[in-house]
């Protein structure tokens, strides 16, 4: 019977049978889904191993610096397979998200070799890369195992994690260095409380004016609930989700390039129009404590039924649909802010894996990164853990994953498919990213607090940004 199960698993791994057929037949053999999955993983690893000397670094120990995140949990859950396949050991330090990047920045700045690879966001690589702390993964990608299939990774994400290091140069453009490998990502769309929307007889918002109106309607009609949750804390993280997605959709840009120099452009007419509506919407029907709102508060409120909808990461809505008061009531919708826009333009956050330039065993580290960003682990995480959104097309095409999402998160796939084509990083890469976006957030706070009118606030911001760019020779 075991042989039969193994054959089945092999058939599934090589995609000769569908997932549903595989599970059905395994069940007939009396093998539970969990056990079946484990078997699949082992076989997948073996499949991955084909044509590549995975045992080359046997006995080595790779050390990782990781963020406390569902992605990390998924990786750790599957780690034994990597160890078995390579004979390597993996040690990891996991730090809470709140302090994770402080730890990374400090560690890298000391040029220490104790971590071989670590998790990072794409924006951070705009500092770490020029600082000389990261390895350009292009040189390793050429040596990948035959079935690694780098091109399976969504092209927008591959480009968004590659940059030449020239401020203002397009991501993934000429001479771009692959500073990191995409691992998991989130795009920005609307997650809303379907129970309330149904009760009020509303459809998800069509565009920003509509969103503003519906949010106000919820604030008026739904008892004790406010309309729209968006982030507002004094941090770069306030700018990159909903705000920048809508900002871009209105045709505004953060910078313009002129003669190889950057020029602040957030005070363009389009930028002012969008920001004006945005600020107005928050004042009308945003959370009362908006300026302290981070990812966590925005999510909490949606999950606890305190807000009608959010314009934030899709996976935040995904997480809030389980284990919360409103679990099962959360629905998803792609969102293009500008009335009449052709498609949504969600900015994305990409949790990626990067290699420490000071690592003393880079190739061993690469082995782990290759495995962790590979199809097999992506598949495992997407099917069984919260390793969403996957970065590989093959995973999105996987029926097991699609089944699971369609069942527990209705509308999520549709949202994703509508959002995905336009999803990428819309920021102009430059090393002052965090200075400028933090100031941008502070500026928004002042506008919402009525300390400065929107237009004037954006003008002041652009002026200040230009001054800072000039001081480091970027303008």
């Amino acid at each position: 019977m075991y042989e039969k199960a193994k054959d089945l698993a092999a058939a599934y791994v090589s995609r000769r049978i569908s997932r549903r057929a595989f599970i059905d037949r395994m069940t007939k053999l009396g093998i539970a889904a969990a056990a079946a999955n484990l078997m699949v993983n082992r076989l997948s690893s073996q499949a991955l191993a084909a044509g590549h000397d995975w045992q080359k670094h046997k006995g080595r120990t790779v050390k990782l610096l990781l963020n406390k995140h569902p992605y990390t949990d998924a990786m750790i859950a599957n780690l034994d397979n990597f160890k078995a396949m390579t004979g390597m050991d993996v040690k990891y330090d996991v730090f809470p998200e709140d302090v994770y990047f402080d730890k990374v920045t400090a560690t890298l700045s000391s040029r220490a070799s104790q971590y071989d690879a670590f998790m990072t966001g794409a924006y951070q690589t705009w500092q770490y890369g020029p600082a000389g702390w990261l390895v350009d993964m292009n040189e390793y990608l050429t040596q990948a195992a035959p079935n690694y299939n780098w091109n399976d990774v969504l092209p927008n994400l591959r480009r968004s994690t590659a940059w030449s290091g020239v401020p203002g140069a397009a991501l993934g453009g000429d001479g771009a260095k692959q500073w990191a490998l995409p691992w998991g990502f989130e795009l920005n769309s609307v997650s809303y409380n379907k129970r309330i929307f149904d009760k009020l007889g509303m459809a998800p918002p069509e565009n920003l004016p509509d969103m503003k109106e519906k949010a106000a309607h919820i604030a008026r009609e739904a008892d004790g609930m406010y309309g729209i949750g968006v982030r507002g804390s004094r941090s770069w993280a306030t700018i990159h989700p909903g705000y920048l997605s809508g900002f871009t959709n209105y045709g505004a840009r953060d910078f313009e390039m002129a003669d190889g120099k950057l020029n602040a452009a957030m005070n363009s007419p389009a930028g002012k129009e969008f920001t004006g509506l945005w600020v107005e919407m928050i004042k009308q029907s945003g959370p009362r404590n908006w300026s302290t709102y981070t990812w966590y508060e925005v999510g909490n409120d949606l999950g606890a039924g305190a807000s009608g909808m959010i314009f934030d990461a899709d996976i935040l809505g995904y997480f809030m649909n389980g284990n919360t008061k409103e679990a099962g009531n959360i629905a998803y919708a792609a969102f293009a802010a500008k009335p009449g826009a052709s498609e949504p333009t969600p900015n994305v956050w990409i949790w990626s894996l990067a290699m420490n330039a000071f690592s003393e065993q880079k190739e061993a580290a690469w082995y782990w990164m290759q495995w962790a960003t590979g199809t097999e682990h992506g598949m495992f995480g997407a099917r069984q853990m919260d390793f969403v959104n996957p970065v590989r097309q093959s995973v999105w095409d996987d029926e097991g994953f699609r089944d699971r999402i369609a069942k527990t998160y209705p509308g999520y796939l549709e949202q994703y498919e509508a959002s995905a084509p336009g999803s990428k990083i819309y920021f102009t890469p430059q090393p002052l990213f965090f200075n400028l976006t933090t100031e941008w957030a502070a500026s928004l706070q002042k506008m919402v607090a009525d300390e400065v009118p929107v237009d004037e606030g954006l003008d002041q911001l652009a002026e200040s940004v230009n001054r800072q760019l000039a001081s480091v020779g970027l303008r």
Partner: protein
Amino acid sequence: MQHTSWHWRLFKGICLALISLFFLFPILWVLLMSFQTNEDILRVPPSPFFTPTLDNYRALIAGELTGAGSTLKIAYMKNIWNSFVLSACSVLLSLLLGVPAAYAFARYRFRLGENIAFTLLSFRFAPPLLVLLPLLLYFQDLGLYDTYFGLIWVYQLITLPLILWIVRGYFEDVSPDIEHAYRIDGHSWLRSFLKIAVPLARPGIAAAALLAFIFAWNNFVFALILGSSDVQPVTVGALAFITASGIQYGQIAAGLVLSVIPTFVLALVMQRYLVEGLSLGAVKG
């Protein structure tokens, strides 16, 4: 002061009640939260009535916490242990170094004495952030990174100035004649220090040690930057309940309660010394 009228006493009682309410209500509320599910905590409007659950504590003590859809491993009890080791060892080392020094500053006028005392206090001036990154460099070079030893050393920046300056004040309040008498009795300097000076300044030493312990316990930036996840204290550990898939307020509350227990027990044990003051009679000469 004995002849207090009843309305004065009533007024004092009301003041104490209000103050206690202000300081203890949040603690009480957190305690209640620690027995609630996240759903109960995130109710609109908040309410003190709920069905208590021990899940938060169970999760913390077992080291497994069930989040949205998955089980996360946490090491909170290990964090508490780390906090305890770091704080206790730091305070002990600070007492060992600081009490004799405090005695020297209180008893002797010596060349550079005030300068040394001020220098030791000035370590408290340096914002931790200022020295943090250079310190990390040196720690890497010296092999002190990620060691209890290195962290205990750095924690001296927090604990030593506090102990030194508080204890110094208490030594100054002890009459030197008592020690002179003991020396004349034929005891060595060391014995008079250990048997007379230290026991008499004990309330001050206890208060300073407790406060230093609390400050060490509450620190997080040093261990965060200078150590791996193996040596992280509760202050960092408690942040692990803030994850992308949501903030586990119930677990943070339970974590807070658990993290306060060791310090609170210590305070109860030291209560006798803390509140007695230098009440052993006319100590001051």
